[in-house]
């Protein structure tokens, strides 16, 4: 009732609360740094831009993950799609590096989509298998060592350099965000995505080719993971084993913290953006505090539960 009187829709409330929580993190972190070091790095634009540059990789992965979660599926193949794209891009090199890297994501997305949409294998298990296959291919390709090949100049420029003082990676993230936001809000594809997430059978009966849309969503997710991989390789100047492992669970968490229903059909892209910023800032505050890994994991888990208890609660089954 109160949310309605504030003029907030059901989808806006999580975004507002998550944004408030970001402020809480910033204030708490600043109080800590002022008390301990006498400075406030969290409020300096340089530091924030640097954090957002690192957050761009997670943001791009989360944008793709959101497309898949909105149709009530999940993509567990993100870690090795990301790593495979980075490894193939660096080993091809030259002007073809980025197209080849993105091509890896496209192919993985197509395979995922076909297995899930047409064979009806649960996405949880199919993408898990695809992830293992990609890992196997890359381990066989690199011999299990970090590849010796480096990122191309274009990849380094896109991920590491700055234009007018703003990191280029941030521009890429913004471009991906605008694209996904437009697709979700302004195109029929976006309408279909929400419809499938709510009830696939109903969308099918309404004349939507639900299987084709499912494939498209998985392709977009694969492309996003591949783009993040190519950029991450550019940022760290090379590809390495397991470079994608740190992106799977945080990307799912960012999407869910942003108010997207894990069962699909509901959620706004702005929420995912806020969710990514929240996770990135939380990580940076914890590392300023010198929090050991144990404490980080505990706080990380508790924050997700807390946020969902505030606004992510499901409805009681009564019929």
């Amino acid at each position: 009732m109160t949310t309605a009187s504030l003029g907030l829709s059901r989808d806006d409330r999580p975004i507002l609360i998550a944004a408030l929580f970001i402020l809480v993190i910033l204030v708490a972190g600043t109080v800590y740094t002022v008390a301990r070091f006498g400075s406030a790095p969290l409020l300096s634009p340089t530091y924030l831009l640097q954090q957002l540059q690192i957050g761009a990789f997670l943001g791009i992965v989360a944008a793709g993950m959101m497309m898949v979660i909105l149709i009530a599926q999940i993509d567990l193949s993100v870690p090795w799609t990301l790593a495979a794209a980075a490894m193939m891009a660096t080993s091809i090199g030259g002007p073809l590096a980025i197209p080849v890297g993105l091509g890896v994501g496209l192919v993985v997305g197509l395979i995922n989509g076909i297995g899930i949409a047409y064979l009806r294998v649960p996405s949880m298990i199919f993408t898990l298998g695809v992830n293992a296959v990609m890992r196997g291919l890359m381990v066989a390709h690199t011999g299990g060592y970090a590849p010796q090949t480096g990122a191309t100049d274009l990849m380094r420029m896109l991920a590491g350099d700055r234009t007018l003082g703003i990191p280029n990676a941030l521009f890429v993230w913004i471009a991906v965000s605008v694209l996904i936001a437009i697709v979700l809000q302004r195109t029929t594809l976006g309408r279909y995505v929400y419809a499938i997430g709510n009830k696939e059978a109903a969308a099918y009966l309404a004349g939507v080719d639900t299987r084709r849309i499912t494939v498209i969503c998985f392709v977009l997710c694969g492309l996003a993971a591949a783009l993040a991989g190519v950029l991450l390789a550019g940022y760290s100047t090379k590809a390495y084993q397991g470079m994608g492992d740190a992106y799977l669970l945080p990307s799912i968490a960012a999407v869910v913290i942003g108010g997207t229903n894990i069962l699909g059909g509901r959620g706004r892209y702005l929420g995912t953006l806020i969710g990514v910023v929240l996770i990135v800032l939380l990580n940076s505050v914890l590392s300023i505090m010198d929090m050991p890994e144990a404490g980080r994991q505990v706080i990380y888990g508790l924050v997700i539960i807390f946020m969902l208890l505030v606004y992510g609660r499901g409805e009681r089954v009564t019929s």
Partner: protein
Amino acid sequence: MLDDIAIRVRQNVGIVTAVLLFAILYLLYNLAHPKGFSSAVLVQNGDEIFALAMLAMAQTVPVLASGLDLSVGAVMTMVGCFASYLLTGAADGTPLHLDIFGLQFGLGTFPGGVSGILLGIVLCLATGALAGFINGCVVVYGRIQPIIATLATGAVYIGIALFLRPTPGGKIDEDLNWALTNSLGDFAATVHIFDDGAASWFAPVAWIPVPFVLLILIALLVWVPFRRSVIGRAVYAVGSAEGAAYMSGLPIERAKIAAFTLAGFFAGCGGLFLAIQTSSGNADIPQAGAYTLNSIASVVIGGTSLLGGTGSAIGSIFGAMVLRVISFFFRIFDIAPLLQPLFEGLILLGAVSISALGVLRVKNTLELFR
């Protein structure tokens, strides 16, 4: 009679396939192994299978209630870290202390000797069950989707494990390690029963590996009674149609909490055994993740639907064994270790895709969208 069997086979086609697949693979494995069909090979396999089999059982119960538990690997790791403090078997006990941000708290001395070990085992299993119970409460009373709730609690449990064991270490009583990871004969000789295992009636069963006996005991004493209880039936009912279960007056909230608690207990059993087997506690995050994912794969290979409502923990045990036997083959046939992940992935994809080919026969497309 024959019709009866045919119907039962048709109803449990998933489990039957998993059992047959395992039987064929294991027979081939033993034929190819230079020391095949020997107790030594069986013991080694049992030790390698046990932890994953327990996690597969753990994953099955929430999946039956159409939930998913992404924290089973974390619970296993956490219980293993507890075990590396509580099961040292030192005769005069183990002093315990807590160290939070440099503040030291003495927690007294944990008893040593046989009674200490038994108490430690009970405490470890209780820790696992408690972790599962917390999962259940977050899911039921917090009304958060299981997949995301257990993702979060799993991070907390891994954090606790890292807190307990920032670096791998600790110690497990050697006798306990020896007794549980070998054959029944060695077990009897270590705990001094049946004339140290030399009793004549005992000889025919002395070759059986202890892990398999434990697995069968846990399945018969925990899973089967649970499956037949009202709560167990309610778990299946919740998985197949939660609304209908609610309208029928089934205790759906208790069923869900029980499902997650049992999952925590099974995962605790797995963690306890892994710690005993490796004689240490290790908060290994990649290992925890790998066990969680393999537990899901085992459940699917074992014929349990991820949508809930049909399947059985027994099938998942065989699913776990199939997964493990496949990796045994890599050793036998000398497949380069670098190619193993590729084969594992291809076999998993192949298995789920073949079982999904039934969709091609579906005439009414609407039936696909469940």
